[in-house]
């Protein structure tokens, strides 16, 4: 009973120990196979040729059959917790395996005359028990093979002539799909939907095996639906069984693909949903359909260059993609160099666990100066965020900063940096954030920024920049956001508000 309950607990991640021992199952499992078969063969031999081996020998073999079968059950159960097996077969295999152990114990206890002393008829149970144990052994062994190698492993290379005799379906033809070269020109059903169906669904929904009366191997059959009706409602994915069953929790009996089989990826479901919502056409290209924000990145990931065109209407773009410097691969920084920077009281922080990109901050190094800045280019590949605000650096340091070709964010606020320094930053192709507040920068310096095509935000509070200078820069970089900050007059304006009256309306 407890086994059953545990199975339903559906543990998401068993411990390493459990899986470690679980992996011994395929080893241990061969012991009861050998022992039991030997016990069976010796028993046959003993029945036909009197006095071939002593009953004690067979008792001993049966004892070890039972012990090893029990261990195989325990390890097998642990292995199953790792998941990834087809539920139905797994369940059969488990009960057959437990049966082997139970009947092996029974056979042993009768043979060893432990039971014989209690029940007089116990001897009658010996041969049936051994026989059932052997039959279950064969069944469990076969199911186990199916679980490990797949149900078609045995028959995979069966010659066609023998296939027809054995009633095994002919070899599945390998389906080839035309690869997508340009996603805009891709045929939605033929090159996107059909490959998904073939990789995850057609195995059970084809001409030979059409579970639930459903075949998903051709447009006609998809339109035909399953035994209870159609599988999709064109234009309405929410009412379409094809999508609904994929979205059910994996534990649900109706969830597809069944638990343990290869599951659809989130992007696969998104594509199927999109296809159905677009009317489930079988003869349209991607560019004929409406591409919304949700599906655009998924389509883009299918490959084939070029931005996703939009057949119907243009939709506002989704979240801005991350800067390439955040996703590109850069070599790991030399730990000696990092230690040198740390000696200058700089903080050197990885952007994330799996990336080599670095943030360098001088928040604890207010005396950081131009001479020390010469150390920075040693990490020219890695530094993407650099905080030098409120330090003693001046224009000379910017010559070093200019070598940090992957910089995305640069803090120079409240330093002695001037227009002359900004001139040197022209080569920072990825720079998006530039903080210059509290510096002596003027319009002349601002003009130098016009070549930073990726610049998104520049901070100019408490500088000598004028409205004209900003306007000029904006003609060169129309998408640039300039944060000028609040002047004393603006504060006076902000402070002024009306007192809330809170007058109740008359009844």
């Amino acid at each position, binding site marked *: 009973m*407890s*086994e059953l309950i*545990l199975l339903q*607990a559906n*543990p*998401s*991640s*068993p*411990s*390493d*120990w*459990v899986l470690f*021992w679980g992996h011994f199952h395929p080893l241990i499992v061969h012991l009861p196979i050998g022992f039991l078969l030997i016990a069976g063969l010796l028993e046959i031999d003993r029945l036909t040729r009197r006095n071939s081996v002593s009953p004690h020998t067979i008792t001993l073999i049966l004892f070890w059959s039972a012990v090893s079968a029990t261990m195989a059950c*325990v390890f097998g*159960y*642990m292995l199953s*917790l790792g998941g990834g097996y087809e539920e139905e077969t797994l369940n059969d295999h488990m009960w057959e395996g437990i049966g082997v152990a139970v009947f092996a114990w029974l056979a042993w206890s009768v043979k060893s005359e432990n039971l014989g002393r209690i029940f007089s008829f116990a001897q009658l149970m010996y041969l049936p028990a051994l026989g059932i144990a052997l039959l279950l052994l064969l069944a469990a062994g076969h199911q186990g093979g199916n679980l490990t190698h797949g149900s078609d492993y045995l028959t995979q290379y069966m010659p066609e002539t023998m296939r027809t005799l054995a009633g095994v379906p002919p070899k599945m033809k390998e389906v080839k799909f035309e690869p997508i070269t340009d996603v805009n020109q891709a045929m939605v059903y033929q090159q996107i939907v059909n490959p998904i169906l073939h990789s995850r669904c057609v195995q059970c929904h084809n001409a030979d095996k059409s579970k639930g009366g459903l075949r998903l191997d051709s447009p006609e059959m998809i339109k035909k639906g399953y035994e209870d009706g159609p599988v999709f409602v064109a234009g309405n994915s929410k009412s379409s069984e094809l999508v609904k069953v994929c979205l059910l929790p994996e534990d649900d009996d109706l969830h597809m693909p069944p638990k343990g089989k290869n599951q659809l990826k989130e992007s696969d479901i998104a594509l199927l949903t999109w296809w159905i919502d677009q009317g489930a056409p079988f003869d349209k290209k991607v560019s004929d359909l409406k591409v919304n924000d949700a599906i655009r990145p998924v389509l883009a990931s299918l490959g084939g260059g070029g931005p996703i065109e939009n057949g119907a209407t243009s939709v506002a773009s989704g*979240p*801005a993609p*991350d800067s390439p410097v*955040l996703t590109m691969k850069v070599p790991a920084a030399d730990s000696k160099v990092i230690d040198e920077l740390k000696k200058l009281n700089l*903080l050197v*922080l*990885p*952007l*994330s*666990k*799996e*990336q080599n*990109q670095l943030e360098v*901050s001088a*928040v*604890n190094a207010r005396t950081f100066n131009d001479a020390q800045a010469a150390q920075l280019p040693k990490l020219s590949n890695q530094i993407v965020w650099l*905080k030098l605000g409120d330090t003693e650096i001046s224009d000379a340091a910017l010559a070093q900063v200019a070598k940090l070709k992957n910089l995305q*964010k640069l*803090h120079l*606020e409240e330093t002695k940096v001037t227009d002359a320094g900004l001139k040197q930053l022209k080569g920072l192709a990825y720079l998006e*954030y530039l*903080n210059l*507040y509290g510096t002596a920068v003027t319009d002349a310096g601002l003009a130098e920024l016009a070549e930073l095509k990726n610049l998104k*935000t520049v*901070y100019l*509070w408490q500088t000598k920049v004028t409205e004209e200078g900003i306007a000029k820069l904006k003609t060169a970089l129309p998408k640039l956001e300039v*944060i*000028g*900050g*609040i002047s*004393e007059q603006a*504060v*006076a304006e*902000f*402070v002024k*508000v*009306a007192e*809330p*009256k*809170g007058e*109740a*309306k008359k*009844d």
Partner: protein
Amino acid sequence: MDIQDEIHDQLSRRTFLGQASAGLGTIALASLLNPTNLFGGASSPGTSMPGENPAVGKPHFPPKVKRVIYLFQSGAPSQLELFDYKPKLETMWGQDLPASVRNGQRLTGMSAGQSRFPLAASKYKFAQYGPGQMWLSELLPHTAKIAGDLTFVRSLHTEAINHDPAVTFFQTGSQQAGRPSFGSWISYGLGSDNQNLPSFVVLLSKGRDGDQPLYAKLWSNGFLPSVHQGVVFRSGPDPVYYLNNPPGVDKTSRRRMLDYLGKLHQEQFKHVLDPEINNRMAQYEMAYRMQTSVPETLDISKEPDYIFDMYGPDSRKPGTFAANCLLARKLVEKDVKFIQLYHQGWDQHGNLPNDIKTQAKSVDQPSAALIMDLKQRGLLDDTLVIWGGEFGRGAYSQGKLTRDNYGRDHHPRAFSVWMAGAGVKKGMVYGETDDFGYNVVKDPVHVHDFQATVLHLLGVDHEKLTFKSQGRRYRLTDVHGKVVKPLLA
């Protein structure tokens, strides 16, 4: 027996058990009894050490947000007077809350006994502001001026109906005390961006008599190493208790004292192997550095007058919400990771129209000023400001309803929170409540979802930031929480 020997004994017994239990039989049995959690499931049996989780100290992916300022509004501000415009309450004023809306949901003992639940409309008018035409109350005239920078969630809901469990739930992910708070998780998971200041700082604005109390458990490290607990910065000349040297002790002798103490601690650690000894040493050293860094960071004497003007007249009075907003900015400038500010006084069960007016006035201008100030300094680019309470307030009047006066009871089923800053869509209003502001009708956001989203912005996968305690792995979001992706910019 000597205490040293005792600890040694315990250690060796523990070690012995740890190894012995790796025996085959025990494992088989244990796994059958508890298949998921054999030795806690990880490959490292034994006690959890600070370095246990390899992700600790580094984000899982590049963060959009480097720092958080959480302007916690304790007592539960009424969303119906401030943020969630419900004209239907005006037309149905005085009528009973339809039973179909309440649907038998529980109320607090304070109003459950009322014979009627007359609907109360906001006494204060609403208007639309900013490029997104966001509805805001006339109680928040300054906030209205920065509407374009705000991101609203109107569909938050929580599980607790009383203050203490609800605040604890928001701050620790559990209604019961004892779990690490939000800031502690972040300090533990992401470390510090300033070696001279704690990464989790707490600012308390002065309450008034009768306000709902705040407890130190809200910024406790729980079972996390104690270096991650929130450090309260008080107002006035001595912001951190016992930080300054006592009279007669100068910097040099303090340094020498710490050096010798460090040696003693190291000696002790070798014997006892208690990680808390290392934490204590780290705390002593941090306190020593803070003797310089704290006065320097919190020095507001050089702030120009117009900055004080921007935060409002209260900003010159230490301990007010406004003064603390200014301090929060100073701390963010120094890259303190998590600044938790608590403001009390929103628990308006009765006399709501008058009280909320005073209360809103105390926060409106400083909150807006903080956003503007962060923005002009380039800090809003990677700082997230959160403004909200532990739950909302109900649509019906608690106590007598008149045109001029009414009260509102606790309401956990729907309330509003705003955010401003990095990683969230500016000017967005997410989620929707029904005509009574009672139930969420679109895009509900549970407290755990909210926490998961903030962690996501900080570059943390909320399911991966875990700590093992008492045989179980814990997260801020417990076993719940989904990142609210539509909010992300």
